[in-house]
Structure formats: C-alpha cells, structure tokens
C-alpha cells in the first residue's frame, strides 16, 4: 500500500507540469463552450494546479479508502468552492463534475508511463483505487453544485416574498395592501405581520386588503384572510377586503365560507370611498363654473 501510494505521489510530483498542461488541454478541448468563455486560462490553470497539489497531499496521508477522512478536507473544501462558483455562473452539474472526471485521463496516462514494463497488477490496482476516489470527488462536486443551486432558488423565493408585500398609505389613516399571487400559509403570515406592523407604525384605523391579484381562493386562503381581519380588529383597526372578482365570490359562496362580519367591496376604489366615509371625510364633485 505504501509503496504504491509512494509511486502515485511520485507521478503527481515529478510530472506535475506535464500533468497540468495535459489536463488543462483536455478541459479546454472537451466540448464545454461555457468553460472557455466564462473561466479565463490563468484562472483554470490555477484551479487545476491547486487541485493537483491538494490531491497529492491527501494521497500522501495514505488514506485512499474514504474521502470523509480529515486528510481529504482541504480537497473537499477546494472542490466545494469551485463547484459553488460554477453553480452560480450557470454551469450544468455534468459540466461541473467534468472538472474532476477529466483529471483521470492525464493522470492514468502518466501513471502508465511510470509503470512501463513493471508490475502490471499493481498498476491496475492503483488505477482502480484512484478511479474510485475521483468518482467520489466528482459526485461530491455534483452534490455541492446542487446545493448551491437550491440556495439560489430559496433566496429568490425569499426575495419574491419581500417584494410582493408592500403596504401603501393611501390617506392619513388609511392603509392598503395589494396582494398579488397565491396566498399560502407562509406568505399569509408575512402579509399579516407586515400589515399589522404598519397599522401600529402609522396608527391607521383602516386597512384595505386588496386581493385583485390573487388568482384563486380556496378554503385555506379564505381562512387566512379571516384571520388577518380578526387580528386587525383585535388591534383596534378595521380591515376591508376589496378586489373580489365574480368567480372568487362564487367560489367563496360555494365553499360555504362564512364571511359575515367582514366588510367586503368589489373594487379598491369602493373600499377607499368607504374608508374615507368612515373617517368622516366627505367626497363630492366641486361645481365648475
């Protein structure tokens, strides 16, 4: 075991320059157009070089069975960094994993050269062990790549939530919150909190919840709306629901949801007019001369 590891390390170190050149050439020639445009030559070269030296150091530890050992930690961290940055740059998982897998060809070529005329069985064993290792590392990059992508999706989801809950002050004492998109439990929670916070901050006795942009209303959504209305009332403000489209009104009645005690209006304009009246403002056209 030690002698064979020694030989691998010897190959990795003695022909490092050649190995690096071959690998970079393979990476460049493999039909991955994005690698060429997004990652510059010096950057790719530096990444490859760092991987080779870290890989050699990990092999020197003698632990070729598992990549979970401490000795492999620097390699894994480096690959995680590469994988994440590629995931963000829009590489596909296979493109990312190719970075590791493509190392096999130059490594095995050089290993065969070092073993020329010597123990064939040992060469085979070495190649087999290295192949297993590189496969594991490649799979690891794919996993990290996937994680990085999921992180992006989650962050975008959160950003969308923040974007989609603006509270607008229509008048002194009148708030409006237009809701766009489907209302699920998580979103309702945010909507409810944002609205109530603003009611306190602006001391507005009336809040209008406009659901013109809500595509469908099911029992759960209706339940959420009712909760928001109840919470607003508990705080001493009044909540008007507006923007109920004909189909949604029909659905609500069909579902048998009790909206008694909740003030509803067909349009935001109607709700606004009602709110102004409740605050004692009177609307009327001025006579034109």
């Amino acid at each position, binding site marked *: 075991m030690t002698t064979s590891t020694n030989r691998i390390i010897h190959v990795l170190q003695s022909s490092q320059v050649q190995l690096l050149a071959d690998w970079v050439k393979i990476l460049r020639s493999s039909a991955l157009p994005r690698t060429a445009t997004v990652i510059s030559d010096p950057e790719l070269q530096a990444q490859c070089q760092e991987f080779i030296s870290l890989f050699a150091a990990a092999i020197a530890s003698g632990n070729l069975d598992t990549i979970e050992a401490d000795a492999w930690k620097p390699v894994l961290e480096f690959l995680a960094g590469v994988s994440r940055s590629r995931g963000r740059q829009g590489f596909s998982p296979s493109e990312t994993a190719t970075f590791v897998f493509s190392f096999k060809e130059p490594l095995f070529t050089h290993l065969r050269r070092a073993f020329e005329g010597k123990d064939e069985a040992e060469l085979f064993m070495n190649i087999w062990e290295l192949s297993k290792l590189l496969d594991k590392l490649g799979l690891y990059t794919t996993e990290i790549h996937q994680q990085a992508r999921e992180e992006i999706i989650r962050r975008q989801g959160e950003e969308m939530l923040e974007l989609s809950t603006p509270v607008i002050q229509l008048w002194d004492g009148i708030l409006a919150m237009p809701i766009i998109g489907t209302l699920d439990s998580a979103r309702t929670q945010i909507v409810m909190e944002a609205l109530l916070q603003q009611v306190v901050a602006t001391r507005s006795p009336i809040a209008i919840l406009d659901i013109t942009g809500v595509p469908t209303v099911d029992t759960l959504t209706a339940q959420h709306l009712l909760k928001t209305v109840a*919470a607003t*009332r508990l705080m*001493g403000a009044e909540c008007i629901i507006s923007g109920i489209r004909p189909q949604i009104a029909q659905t609500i009645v069909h579902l048998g949801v009790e909206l008694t005690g909740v003030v509803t209006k067909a349009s935001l304009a109607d709700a606004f007019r009602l709110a102004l009246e409740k605050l004692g403002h009177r609307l009327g056209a001025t006579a034109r001369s």
Partner: protein
Amino acid sequence: MDRIPILRLGDTLLVTVQVDMHDQLAVRLLDDLTTMITKVRARGVLIDISALDMVDSFIGRMIADIAATARILDARAVVVGMQPAVAITLVELGMSLPGVQTALDVDHGMELLREPRDS
C-alpha cells in the same frame, strides 16, 4: 403582592398593563376592576395593553372576561394598543374576542368611549 393600578378619569377607568401579565395578576385585576366599577359607577373602562408582548389562552380569556364583566356592570370596555404579535397569537389560538371593543391607542379608545351609546 403586586397589582395593576387602576386610574380614574372622570367616569372612565384607565388600566395600563405595564408588567408581564401572569395568571394571578390577571385574576386580581378582574377583581379590583369590578369592585372599582361599582364603587365609582364608571361608564367606561379603557385597558391599555400596548406594553404586553406575550399572551397565552388564559390571559386572552381574562381580557374577554374583563370586557364581559364590565358590560354587565353597564360600563363599556375598550382594549387598546394590542401588539401585532399578540393579535396574531390570539387569532391563532382561536380567540378573536368577538364581544370586545378595540382601538389603536388611548386617544382613539377615549374617542370611542365618548361616542353616544346605542342603548
């Protein structure tokens, strides 16, 4: 044992909850308040809970009880200044306190009490 002070403003009683409301304290408040309402023949009770940032179902029920008791004694009860978190908690607990009048702050609450009564 500490208790929550009840202030008298004309024919209105003003209760400001400024400490964490524990069960004993709430029961005691209900006791004191009912005694006070009959003693000074108050027509309105204003309960300011703006400093209360945590409630459980018991406190929620006590608030409802205080309002109901005041109503029986012919005084209008208004709960003012409930925090968003408290309101959400109460709604999630299924206590939307249907019989309790609410207002945003003491100002609005006093206005509400000054309005002529329906009955």
